[in-house]
């Protein structure tokens, strides 16, 4: 029918598409990706062979004795071969295979290393990532002699440039249409469903009438885990859709109080199950100023 191919009436069988993705690629490696000024995403794979090597170098019980962590190095200003001096650790399980890493300081360069902190304080590195340069997320302090504007003018310019709209991008139309659709559905059926939301985004707003100094803070809860890709998993009794590699994650709003999160996994043949019960308590105190 066309140069690009015949329409084959009978060739509608799904090909390899239904197969799950490879669980691993047989290489010890890790990567770090920038998400926003304060968040990065790391994924890693550590092969059995690498673990064996680590055991033979550092002792058979090294994985039992060591605390499993992501070591986050500040690489700002460090050139090839230089050793970073600033770092902090995040406790993880090696089986998690991926993690969102929060950093306090935006606008800096970071690199991560997954490894073990031993009882004597020494660090056994297992796998290291690339370096990521995070954006600063604010107006630069650097000015340009040739193109200088006075500060008051610059503040006005920021306003004119729409600084207040930052981050309200192209999702907007899709969102407003979706909202309208929800409105129509609600008018129609009087039904609305509020369930476990994987994207509860609470925007932090600057106070309406800005005082000289201000602070806003909030927190959310990220739950994640992994199991067999074909398992049936529930969180708080609701079914969770697993990613093709068997991992899952959810983000929750976290109001003050106690949140119970029973997590259950049932194997595909329904002969085996596992449960993990997480209880989170949040209490917020503000000084009221």
């Amino acid at each position, binding site marked *: 029918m066309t140069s690009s191919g015949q329409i084959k009436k009978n060739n*509608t069988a799904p090909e390899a598409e239904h197969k799950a993705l490879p669980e691993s690629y047989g290489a010890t490696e890790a990567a770090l*990706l920038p*998400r926003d*000024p304060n968040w990065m995403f790391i994924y890693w794979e550590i092969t059995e062979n690498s673990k064996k090597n680590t055991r033979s170098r550092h002792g058979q019980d090294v994985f039992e004795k060591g605390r499993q962590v992501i070591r986050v190095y500040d690489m700002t200003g460090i050139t090839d071969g230089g050793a970073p001096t600033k770092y902090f650790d995040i406790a993880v399980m090696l089986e998690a295979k991926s993690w969102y890493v929060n950093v306090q300081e935006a606008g800096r360069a970071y690199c991560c290393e997954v490894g073990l902190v031993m009882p004597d304080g020494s660090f056994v590195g297992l796998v290291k990532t690339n370096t990521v340069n995070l954006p600063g997320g604010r*107006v630069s302090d650097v*000015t*340009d002699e040739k193109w200088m504007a006075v500060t008051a003018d610059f503040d006005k310019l920021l306003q004119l440039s729409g600084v207040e709209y*930052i981050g309200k*991008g192209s999702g907007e139309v899709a969102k407003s249409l979706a909202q309208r659709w929800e409105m129509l559905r609600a008018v129609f059926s009087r039904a609305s469903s509020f369930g476990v939301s994987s994207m509860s985004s609470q925007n932090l707003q600057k106070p309406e009438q800005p005082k000289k100094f201000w602070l806003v803070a909030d927190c959310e809860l990220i739950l994640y885990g992994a199991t067999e890709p074909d398992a049936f998993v529930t969180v708080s009794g609701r079914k969770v859709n697993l990613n093709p590699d068997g991992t899952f994650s959810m983000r929750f709003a976290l109001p003050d109080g106690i949140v119970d999160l029973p997590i259950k996994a049932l194997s595909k043949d329904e002969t085996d199950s596992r449960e993990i019960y997480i209880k989170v308590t949040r209490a917020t105190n503000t000084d009221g100023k």
Partner: protein
Amino acid sequence: MANKEKGYLALVLHAHLPFIRHPEYEDFLEEDWFFEAMCETYIPLLDIYERLTAEGTDFRVTMSITPPLCNMMADDLLRERFRRYYSLRLELAEKEVIRNRNTGFYEVAKMYETKFRRIRELYEDYYHGRILDGFKKFQDMGKLEIITCGATHGFLPLELRKEAVHAQIKLAADDYRKHFGRGPRGIWLAECAYNPGDDVFLKAQGIRYFFLETHGIIYGSPRPRYGVYAPVYCPSGVAAFGRDMESAQQVWSAETGYPGDHRYREFYRDLGYDLEYDYVKPYLHQDGVRRNIGMKYCKITGKVGLNEKAPYNPAEAREVAASHAGNFMFNRERQIEHLNGFLGRKPVVVSMYDAELYGHWWYEGVDFLEFLFKKIHHDQKSIKMVTPSEYLGIHPDNQVVQPSMSTWGDKGYNEVWLNGTNDWMYRHLHKQVERMVELANKFPNADGALRRALNQCAREVVLGMSSDWAFLMTVGTAKNYSTKRFVAHTHRFNGLYEQIMGNRLEEGFLKDIEWRDNIFPEMNYRVFSTEEAEKAARS
């Protein structure tokens, strides 16, 4: 009297759809995205360009037509299927005019008949099925500036390898040359996602400018003297234009934006659901399930249920579009006059939108643009419409600033494309890129079946890189389809990779996926070689 203007307006429309083409099915649901956008946005835009030109109304507009879209527009199979699509719509529209002769829906039924006849006329008689020639015609006249985009709308800040960035840009530039007969002057980075330093790969392809979301410029360093109202040069010398939020919000905003006017067409009330089943069935997909067919008879009406919507009045809606265009122009005049006084320089206001907003989502949006072009040409003197190339010709003196990493997505950075719904993709995608680079380096001069296999590997990798898959997973629409697509390209790549490395190529397998994923017929897998990327970075 050429210099009376107080500033410039650059209107930029980003036209893009992921590459969706399924020869293995006779009839495929998601291919409709392309056909709908053809009928509602791309051809109607050409229609107004034709009319404005015939009337002698000068206008300027910048449009990205992404490589996947170019490849779909030029594809024989999709062209055939598009003919089937609009012919069926026209057939139904003609029946509908008769059925609605004495009803309140007569005018709107007439509107669709006229519309689909015009689509047929433009598509067949004007452009002979090659609508890229239509766009090229207006580019050659200097009224339209067509820009490119990453080869498959790849999201560059989440790529680990420079070879991948280079491949996305180089394939795009080559594809552009093939369709438009010269190199691209500008590019729309997919999702306006900018990673500092990637601009060197633009420069290597002769690309002179790209676009950024507002904070990409105003968080740049050093501080940009004119905010987003003048472009800046990256250290590489490529110019970056920043988005004006005031004009963006005027159209987008959920509360106050134009598209929500109650006299405009209601998107969610569609003949696919409204008509008697047996009557509409021939116009549905083969599975017979009721779905939107793109013909809608009601106006938004107000905050009422779908069953209380009033008939759409095309003449009334057109008048509203004209008055919205007048309002938009008035606001730009005031904005530009104010900025001119404040900055001491003629500002350039860059208004950037998804092209499909006009016509597809906002049905009257194309009318709005036509009125806007006319009003700006006839009714005012303070605004001059420009393309970015024209602006850089008039004002080559711009500040050097390193823009900040940014995107135009929700929250301004990479989260839309990197969150719990889609982060699992990246380890697979990165592995494919790594393997592709390995293959390109290992086989500098392959030929025969091996060459075809390597080229197909490169097609599968770039198809998997589309930012669309991650986006659709985040917003939750077509999540199954996007997941399937990503998984399919991963499998096809991995299958070929193993066959190549094991020296056991299966001709049948290769042939089958060449037939399915035929984007970039002129693909040369060497675009992924380290040597090429390094050469580009040094240029």
